[in-house]
């Protein structure tokens, strides 16, 4: 997610962000993919599925590689970060 986040950046993830609503485009979320917590940006939403792409598009492994992510895989929304 360079340049948005660098190695060691701390983020606060709001786990209840999507209890009622759905993720929206441009939001940054933490999602559980392949057993790992990934931080990616939502670029598309289709029903219960979201398409996640990293800001560093040339280097990022994201939905372009692993496909759409189910909404239940979204852990929460990143609401604060600091380094």
């Amino acid at each position, binding site marked *: 997610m360079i340049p948005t986040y660098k190695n060691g950046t701390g983020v606060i993830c709001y786990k209840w962000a999507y209890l009622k609503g759905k993720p929206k485009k441009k939001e940054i979320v933490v999602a559980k993919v392949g057993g790992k917590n990934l931080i990616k940006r939502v670029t598309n939403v289709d029903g219960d599925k979201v398409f996640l792409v990293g800001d560093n598009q040339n280097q990022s*492994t994201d939905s372009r590689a692993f496909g759409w992510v189910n909404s239940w895989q979204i852990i929460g929304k990143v609401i604060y970060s600091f380094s």
Partner: protein
Amino acid sequence: MKWLIKFLFKILPTEQAYAHCDIPCGIYDPRAAQVASATVLKMVQQIKELKVEGEDALSKLNYKNALTRRIMNKEEHAQICKRELLILWTDYFKPEHLEKFPELHDTIWQAAKLCSKNKQSVDEDSARELVEAANKVAEIFAETKK
């Protein structure tokens, strides 16, 4: 505010999240596949040139030893070549690359098949085809970096 959050981070349980890809970013390089394919070709050539140096039992044994080492090396590097190609295929290349290079899927598929073919046989033509296929993938890779 910031000090409070940093303090809470220290005392509250936290989890690690990855903002990067599955391995450190940017370590994609077709040269590993190219080197492995060149090794396969070299091993095929050496296997074909290998001769028993004498009539005694030791010479025959040494021949078998030298032959086995080259076959093992060919097998190993054909596998390395296949693995490196598949890493590029599944992790590096993106749909936008495929749009630009529609032959990408077939090129890598054929290259991976050539890796298997070179394991199964000692065939210099197939080995040369593998080198060319790895070079072709490297060319596409280089184009995507422009």
